[in-house]
Structures are given as C-alpha cells and as structure tokens.
C-alpha cells in the first residue's frame, strides 16, 4: 500500500523542520518528503491541507492492563485508544498481574500486541521478581524477550542494598533503570500532597520529601553503580532541582519525564474530593507544576508521557483515600501537549519533540519518532485548530477516569498510520 499525505504541514522535531510538504509512504516506511519518488503512484491520497503531519506519538508510560486487570481495560480497547490518540508506540510499565518478570509473559504480551497490529509496544521489565524488591529478575532474558528497560513501576524497593545490587546488575549490561521516586515510609498512608489543600480536606499527606529522599538515594546509587538512570513522573520542583544538581555537579547521566496530569494540574484541582485527581505521585502545589512546565519547555525534563492508567468506575466511585489511583491518558497526550504549547507559547517542534523524538531517545527507539526517509511510517495527522470536549463517550479507552473530563482541548487526530497502514481516521 502506497500512501501520499498531501499538502500537510510536516512538523518533524527530530530534524527541526516545519514546512508544508507531501509525505510519501511505501512498504511501511517513509519513502520521501516533498517530491514523489520516481514512479510513485499512491493507492490512496490523504488530503492534509490545514492539518499537521507529525511522527506518531511515543508514550513512555501506558498501562494497557493486560495481563491481570482485564476488567479495567484490555489490549484491544487500549490499542483503539492509542490509535485515536495518534500514539503509535507505547512503553508498558511492568505492574501487570503477574508483573512482567518472566520472559514468557513478555513474549506473550508482545505476541498479543503484534496480532492486534496497532501501536508498537515496548515493555519495561520488572527489576525484581514480582516487583517485591527482594530477588533480581532475569534481566538479560527479559531483554531478549523484548524489554528495553527495567523498572519497579510504583513499587519502590525498600531495601537499599537490593536497590544498589539491582542497579549494579543492570549496569553490567548497560541496561536502563527507570525508577519512580517514592520513599516508601514517607509515602505510606498518604493520598495527597502535604499542603494546604490536603490539610483543609483532611487527607493524609505525602510530603515532597517522599520524592526528594528517593531521588537523592537513586542519584547516589547511580553515581556508585554507573547505571543509566531514568527518573519517572517527577512531581516537585525540589525533585527537579536535585536532578539538575546531579547533572551539573557530578555529571551523572540521568534523564526524567513528567506526566500530562502533573504538567497541567495541581493539588487544588482535587476540589471536592475528585478521585480522578487521586494519582501517583500526588498532584503537588501550583509552584511545582509551574517549575515542571518550565523545565519541560527548556529540556531539563526530557519527555512528557500520559501515565495512562485506566481504572473502572467502581474503583473511582469511592472515598478519595479508598479509591484506586490513576488516570486514563492515551487519547489526551496530544491534546494536552498542544494545550501546553499554547499556554507556554512554544513552537510546535519543541512541544511535539517531548512526545516524539525525545521520547524515542529515552526508549532507545531509532526507527520511529521522526519522519526521515527510511523511518518506520508511524504518522499522526491532526487538525491543530479543531477542539473537542473530553467526555466519557468520546474516550475509546475503557478507562473513563480523567480529571480533564468536561474540558475542551485543542487538536483532533484525523489519521493515524502505523508502519504505513492507515489504522485510524476521523
């Protein structure tokens, strides 16, 4: 199938290019930009006048809920959501049930995803067996099965000796370790950022120190072990500054990301106990959000992800502290990237880089996340001027849980192509 995407404004952050050109796709790859290759006759032409043609989005954290949580979401439903959101590659955290700690599980997941033929998946292996923080998982085997990094998802390793050894072992092979900064004892029993809002609502708090103590520990151990550390879902300005210091003073190779929720929201959005704002890490102060937003803009934070976590209604329709944390996000990654660009008046190449080329770099993806000839033809074509309201009906994801319900956001995906196949159009 040969496809021509005609007259679109091609924004390719990896190559800092932003101009109206045609894109030619053949054999699942980008064949050419601008002029058609000799003898190219498209089977289909997608008219993209007034639309933006960008690399398919790469989401660094999307829980597709398989295996183990099929009542919350299935691979089928979430792949539909990815396509509707223009997301063509997803990194999958290991907190499935059972956790992604066995090569067989990872192979099965990859096989299932491949059969569905939607977004490419990039599983993140469990760093320890069952994410229990006791025994190391078979990292080399897991890598072979398809994992590109190792993580504990939201289950911190309590025993710092185990953590150091896990890092050492990963560093032996040069594997990346992705860690959520959670100091377990300081987090225990807390549900919201320790601050005025939590104090007013009587919600047990999680202090910023729960993040900074963990980051400090991770950084010290990364320095000792030489592991490639990626800190996931930053929530605080303090945490960010620790990472900056580690880079500047000690030359530690550490990357980090932030979620769409923490980029746009703060603890005040909890309002009257809105359980959609029950998240890990907790939404912090407005000053934290502003610091994260500025750091993402200038690249101190490397990437933006959805931290997609579908939760069924029954587990959200509970008192805040008894509700299940997490928010759906695959379909909101693009709109919220665009809203952020609007709010901060950022060029599209910069904003989209955080969900395409920069994310690709962190996930070690070279064949996608950009639109150079020869790249995998994962493409997202969207209307930057159209706006749509986030509603339960509009979301394809089985999870309808998002703090953004009812908000009108910019950007509507018109076409999503995966390896040159048109998988979604609207």
């Amino acid at each position, binding site marked *: 199938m040969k496809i021509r995407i005609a007259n679109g404004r091609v924004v390719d952050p990896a190559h800092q290019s932003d101009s109206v050109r045609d894109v030619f796709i053949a054999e699942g790859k980008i064949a050419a930009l601008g002029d058609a290759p000799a003898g190219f006759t498209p089977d289909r032409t997608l008219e993209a006048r007034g639309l933006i043609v960008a690399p398919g989005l790469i989401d660094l954290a999307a829980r597709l809920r398989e295996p183990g949580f099929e009542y919350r979401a299935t691979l089928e439903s979430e792949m539909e959501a990815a396509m509707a959101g223009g997301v063509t590659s997803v990194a999958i955290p290991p907190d499935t049930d059972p956790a992604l700690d066995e090569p067989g599980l990872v192979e099965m997941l990859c096989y299932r995803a491949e059969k569905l033929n939607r977004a490419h998946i990039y599983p993140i292996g469990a760093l320890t067996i069952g994410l229990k923080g006791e025994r190391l998982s078979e990292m080399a085997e897991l890598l072979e099965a398809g994992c590109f990094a190792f993580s504990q998802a939201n289950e911190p390793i309590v025993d710092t000796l185990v953590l150091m050894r896990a890092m050492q072992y990963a560093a032996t092979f040069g594997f990346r370790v992705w860690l959520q900064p959670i100091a377990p004892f300081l987090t225990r029993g807390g549900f919201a950022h320790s601050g005025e809002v939590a104090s007013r*609502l009587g919600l*047990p708090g999680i202090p910023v120190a729960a993040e900074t103590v963990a980051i400090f520990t991770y950084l010290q151990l990364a320095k000792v072990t030489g592991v490639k550390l990626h800190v996931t879902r930053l929530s605080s300005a303090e945490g960010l500054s620790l990472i900056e210091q580690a880079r500047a003073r000690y030359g530690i190779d550490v990357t980090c990301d932030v979620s769409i929720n923490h980029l746009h929201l703060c603890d005040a959005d909890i309002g*009257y106990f809105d359980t959609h704002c029950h998240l890990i890490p907790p939404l912090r102060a407005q000053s934290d959000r502003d610091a994260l937003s500025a750091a993402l803009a200038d690249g101190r934070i490397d990437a933006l992800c959805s931290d997609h976590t579908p939760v069924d209604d029954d587990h959200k329709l509970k*008192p805040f502290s008894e509700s299940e944390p997490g928010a759906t996000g695959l379909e909101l990654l693009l709109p919220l990237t665009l809203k952020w660009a609007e709010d901060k008046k950022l060029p599209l190449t910069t904003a989209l880089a955080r969900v395409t080329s920069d994310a690709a770099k962190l996930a070690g993806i070279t064949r996608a996340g950009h639109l150079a000839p020869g790249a995998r033809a994962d493409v997202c074509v969207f209307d930057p001027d159209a706006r749509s309201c986030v509603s339960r009906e509009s979301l394809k994801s089985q999870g309808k849980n998002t703090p953004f319900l009812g908000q009108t956001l910019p950007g509507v995906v018109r076409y999503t192509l995966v390896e040159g196949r048109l998988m979604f159009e609207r």
Partner: protein
Amino acid sequence: MRNPQLNKNGELQHLLTLDGLPRDVIVSILDHAAPFTEVAEREVKKLPLLRGKSIFNLFFENSTRTRTTFEIAAKRLSADVVNLNVSTSSTAKGESLLDTIDNLCAMHADMFVVRHAASGAPVLIAKHLQAAGRDHIHVVNAGDGRHAHPTQGLLDMYTIRHYKHDFTQLTVAIVGDVLHSRVARSQIAALNTLGVPELRVIAPKTLLPAEIEKLGIRVFHDMSEGLKDVDVVMMLRLQNERMSGALLPTPQEYYKVWGLTEEKLALAKSDAIVMHPGPMNRGVEIDSAVADGSQAVILPQVTFGIAVRMAVMSMLAGQ
C-alpha cells in the same frame, strides 16, 4: 464546580463541612437552634416537624455518643430513625458504599446521617444523590475521617455565642491533636468565617497538618504563650493510638506539656471558658479539676448539640 452542599439556588441541601459555608448560613443555623433548646424542658419533648420522615443513621465507624445525639435530635423532631452500624453489616460482606446508599434510597430514606472513617465519604454520597437526581434526600455529615464534623463545629459556635456573644472580640485557642481532628478543621473554618480576630492552635509539630497557618491561624507550641489572654480554650481529644505512630512519646509527657491544668488555665482570661468535644481523656489532655471546674462548659455543649442538630435537620428537610 458547584459546592456539593448547596442546591441549584445556593440553599443548603446537605451539611457536609463548615469550610466555605457562608457566614449568613452559619448564623442562621445558630439562630434557628435557639428556640429548639427550650423543647427539652417540656412535658412532651417532641416537635412534629419531621413526622413521617425516615432518617438513617449510617455509622461506618462506631460512635455511640454522636449517634445518640443525632438519634435524640431526630426523635424529638418526630422522625423515624433507623440506626445502621454498617461497619458490622453490609460493607463487611463487600458491598460498596454507594450500593448501600442506593439500597436505602429504595427504602425511601429522606435523610442520611453519615459517619465514616474516610475523609470526603459524605461528599461522595451527596454527589451520588445529585447525579441520580435525588434532590429530596439530604445528607448530614456526622464526622468523616479528618475532614469535617460540621454539627460539632456548629454546637461549639453556639456555645461560644451563648457565653461570649461577639465573635469579633475574641481570642480563641484550639489545643491538641489538630492533625487527626475533623472537629478542629470545622472549628477553624467556622471561627474564621464568624470573624474571630485571633485564632490560635497549640500543639506539638507532630500533631499539626502541613501549612496549617494558611488556614488562618497562629501556631503555638508552648501552652504558656498560646493560652495567654485567651477567651475560649477548645480542647481536642487525644487518641491513644497516637503513641504507637511515633507521634508522641507517652501520654504522661503529653499531659505534662499540653494537658490543660488549672495552673495553665490561669494564664487565660479569668472569665475564659473551656470546651471539649468529648469523650474526654482525663489526665491526658485535661485535668479533672478543669473538666469539672467552673470555667468548663463541656456539658452545656452536649445540651446545645441536640438543639443545633434539630435545627440542622429541620432546616434541611424543610426545603
């Protein structure tokens, strides 16, 4: 987002918290409570206001005292009262909170009085009723987690007004475990709304929530500084489990530093009143000599509590 305790016309639909409740609403509840105090002195201690209404006391957390005061208030209003200790019934069988509510709605409940261990549970119920279009059912928060205990806060305001009349001339100190206290949060909200110019809390740092000063109070750690020249001393209950959470060393040390004794009370104004939401831990947060002394208004608080709850219930159900 609409304040879940107000209806479309901005009137009180539920009583969930005193935080954000307009001053005139609070004053109106206190005004309404006054005539109800007289009912207890009658031959027949009953008014026909809520005749034929079904009130469910939904206690997901045990509290005989609070449940009893609500029960008496509802019965004096002639309502049919059903007590449900949910902690020992359906939720133990795995039924969700909202399923329990739906079931009771099907039994034609008119009002829920809810006590729950989780902050915000009554708010959830109110939002659920609103979403289901059940605007004729009212929710009264009888204490949720650390969030709010609005009727306690109101009866405290009634008591202060009864003895001190003008809130705008007062120095008030709240003493003790503010961190875990829904009572303290409701008191702080109401006292600020009613214009108390100097509101203090006195507690160790382990028993204060983050950024508490942003709630409009002055923080003291020392009793002799904090009690100086106050008009009203509001004691909080200290629960024994605070010792195990590494929040405090021992009840003895707590009593020594923060327990209210006659000696410490002497630092307050000579006509200062002493309040306590009960049940008291004598010898832990308060000395018996103070609890039984002439400045204590702890038992009047209980009496006023019935009238305040009658006022709240009849104001809600009459809308």
